[in-house]
């Protein structure tokens, strides 16, 4: 069941209604847990057991870490948790990828390893990071261990964020379980976010997807202008798809009385690649920073080690996204961009020089960042490395072919650009839809109409749901 499907809306209404009716906190938690399990079972009931493993293991490990005084014992339980979580992730997500990639090498050494017939469990990358963060936080005493297995199970199986995040932290979510309650204000704010998310996904992203998919199916047929339009369209498609999903997940949570961390903050307004990662998929960026980059030493061990840490963090970030070398390359590409940015910043600081913050310089910085990010998406979107290279060569040559300028894409590119310009001038308030404004229901119903009337005919899953 995808968040953009009619079935999910019915499901959400049912769960929200049950939470509204039920006043007892413990019963509400049971409702949430049941809803989470049903939601997961709707996809494939066999994988519920797989979901149960980290719940039990991490809950137990968390309790034991909290109870143990000896450092080695605490470390042992942390390692058990990490091994179980990462082990499941590696087996189900990466085993076939590595076997497939290194098969010829393994065969030369006489190993004949066969790939496994496995389905990628829904949301595995997301809930693994969620559960990992819990035990690590308990180990470093950043959070209390959870005393109730029910609470912890609700945290892991919380259905709005189960498939593709936001990667909520236990320290943020678990305390809310004591006091969460649906209310009129939450309902209003939740519906608003949900409808906006639905609009971003079904109206904008899916309709752009038609153009992008058409281009990527046969890139060499089209000319360079079409190639530029297509990569620009994908830049917007992935943003609206994923931020739409995040809005819907946050909105659904809000309807039920939960506040989930924001995942996006106008990433395409960034004027540096570092800023981009502070605005794009914020919960993942924070996870990688807190549990990978900083433990590796962050930027405290000199420039060379900083660059190495950045590269490791970003390569793993790329690999987390998908099991293809194009994703690894994409991660590495961003790692290199971050290193360049860091080097540039360091040089400016050591020379005590700063580029004047004139609007011209800001626009130039924004343009370079946007271009770097957009070109990076070519590797992210291409099914094969050779196709990515074909697209790249097409972009920077006068390749002749069929010209296809999709009017909807042009409209969305212009509209998004205008909205971002207004935002950067702090004038976006005129286009905002506050929770309590008298016109908000009209706007939301109108957006819902647009979704109903112009959504794509074919069901398109969320891009990030495949990770």
């Amino acid at each position, binding site marked *: 069941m995808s968040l953009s499907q009619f079935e999910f809306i019915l499901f959400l209404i049912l769960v929200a209604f049950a939470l509204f009716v039920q006043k007892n906190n413990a019963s509400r938690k049971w409702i949430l847990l049941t809803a989470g399990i049903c939601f997961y079972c709707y996809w494939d009931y066999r994988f519920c057991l797989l979901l149960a493993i980290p719940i039990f293991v991490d809950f137990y490990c968390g309790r034991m870490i909290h109870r143990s005084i000896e450092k080695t014992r605490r470390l042992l339980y942390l390692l058990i948790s990490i091994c179980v979580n990462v082990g499941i992730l590696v087996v189900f997500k990466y085993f076939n990828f590595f076997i497939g990639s290194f098969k010829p090498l393994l065969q030369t050494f006489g190993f004949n390893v066969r790939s496994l017939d496995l389905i990628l469990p829904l949301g595995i990358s997301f809930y693994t990071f969620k559960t990992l963060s819990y035990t690590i936080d308990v180990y470093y005493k950043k959070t209390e261990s959870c005393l109730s297995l029910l609470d912890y199970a609700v945290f892991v199986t919380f259905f709005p964020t189960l498939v593709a995040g936001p990667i909520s932290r236990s320290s943020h979510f678990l305390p809310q379980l004591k006091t969460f309650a649906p209310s009129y204000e939450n309902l209003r704010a939740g519906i608003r976010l949900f409808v906006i998310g639905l609009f971003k996904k079904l109206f904008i992203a899916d309709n752009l997807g038609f153009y992008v998919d058409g281009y990527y199916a046969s890139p060499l047929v089209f000319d360079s202008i079409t190639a530029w339009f297509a990569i620009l369209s994908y830049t917007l498609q992935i943003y609206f798809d994923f931020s739409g999903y995040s809005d819907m997940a946050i909105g659904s949570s809000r309807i039920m009385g939960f506040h989930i961390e924001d995942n996006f903050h106008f990433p395409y307004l960034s004027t540096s690649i570092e800023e981009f990662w502070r605005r794009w998929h914020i919960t993942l960026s924070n996870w990688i920073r807190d549990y990978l980059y900083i433990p590796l030493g962050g930027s405290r061990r000199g420039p060379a080690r900083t660059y190495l840490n950045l590269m490791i963090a970003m390569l793993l970030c790329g690999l987390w996204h998908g099991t293809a070398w194009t994703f690894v390359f994409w991660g590495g590409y961003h790692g290199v961009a971050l290193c360049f940015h860091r080097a540039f910043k360091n040089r400016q600081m050591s020379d005590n020089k700063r580029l004047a913050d004139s609007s011209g310089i800001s626009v130039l910085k924004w343009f370079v960042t946007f271009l770097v990010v957009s070109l990076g998406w070519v590797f992210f979107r291409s099914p094969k490395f050779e196709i990515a290279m074909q697209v790249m060569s097409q972009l920077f040559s006068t390749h002749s072919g069929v010209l296809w300028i999709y009017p909807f894409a042009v409209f969305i590119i212009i509209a998004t650009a205008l909205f971002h310009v207004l935002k950067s001038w702090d004038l976006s308030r005129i286009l905002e839809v506050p929770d309590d404004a008298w016109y908000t229901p009209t706007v939301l*119903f109108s957006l819902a109409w647009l979704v109903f009337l112009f959504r794509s005919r074919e069901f398109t899953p969320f891009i990030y749901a495949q990770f």
Partner: protein
Amino acid sequence: MAKKVKRWLFNSWIIGFFTSCLFAYVVTNIFMDSIDSHEYDSQLGKFTYSANNYYRMRREGWATTFIGKYNTIGVKDIEKNKLPKIAIWGDSEVTAFPVPDASKVSQQVSDMFTKIGREIVGFGIAHSNNTLADYIVDLRKYELLIPNIVSHYIVLCNLNDDTLPYLKKGPGCASFEYSNGFRLINSDCRPPYQKVFHQLGKFNLRIVSYSFGEIYGYQMQLPWARKKESKKNHNTVDEKAIYDKLEAWDFIISELRKQSDRPIKIIYCPYRPAILGRNISFKDSQQKDKEFFASICLRYNIGFIDLTERFNYFFLNTMKFPRGFANSFPGRGHLNADGHRLVAEAIFSNEVHRNSLKQ
């Protein structure tokens, strides 16, 4: 006080809903296709598009089409026009809702004759989903209703779906059937829910017809509806396998010839060139069928004009497809303005050639 606020908020949601409906009404009348409105035509003895009406197409292309009496496309009061005429028959390729009237094949044919100082009018007779069976049933009636038709051109794109028994999907009118021999069966072409759609069309209530269609579509996806549909399809497959293709063509072409002694020509517009996989395909998948079909046409003195070469040549020269629009996938779907021009050129050159032979 709190109650008052709550009531106001509740009201704002209700008012909001109705205001948004108004917004949706406006949006559907600008950015969505018109409703297919039909009326009974006593002279043709069947339902046709509501006469003297404008049809808006947005889903594919962006155009408005005038529909005259008797499903005539793009020309007003054709039945009153005494000039010599070329009738261009077809399905949605000739109704050509995605193409503006000025670029439609019929108008382009008229323009080409005007340019050389000849007063010959081209006009389309079409309805989406029409097949060769419909043209056979209607041809004689049209010759009586519309004066001075000098020749007929039939636009065909799919030699299987448009010419063989049972294969056409969707609601057709006349049908070509096989049961102990081939036969053509006429009908009044009443579309489903005709009265409802006709009334909705009057008030441009596209929003209602669309919602109705969506609910119907959603209901069709439910497990029991799917089961019923697959059972129905299974039966149709059984029916398809029992006749010989060449015999079917022989029958239908001979029937076509019987309807009129005026020149009849079939214009074949392939779905090529098209993007297939990672490349552009120029090879027509109906090549073999086309050869057989053309030889049968020749036997009955019906011309067969194949536009495959012209379409391919046009693409190689311009890198443009004769099919597809900016808002649809290039090379797929209906003929675009360029495609119509190529068809018009074929008709024009054929007519000029025929007249020069006659003189």
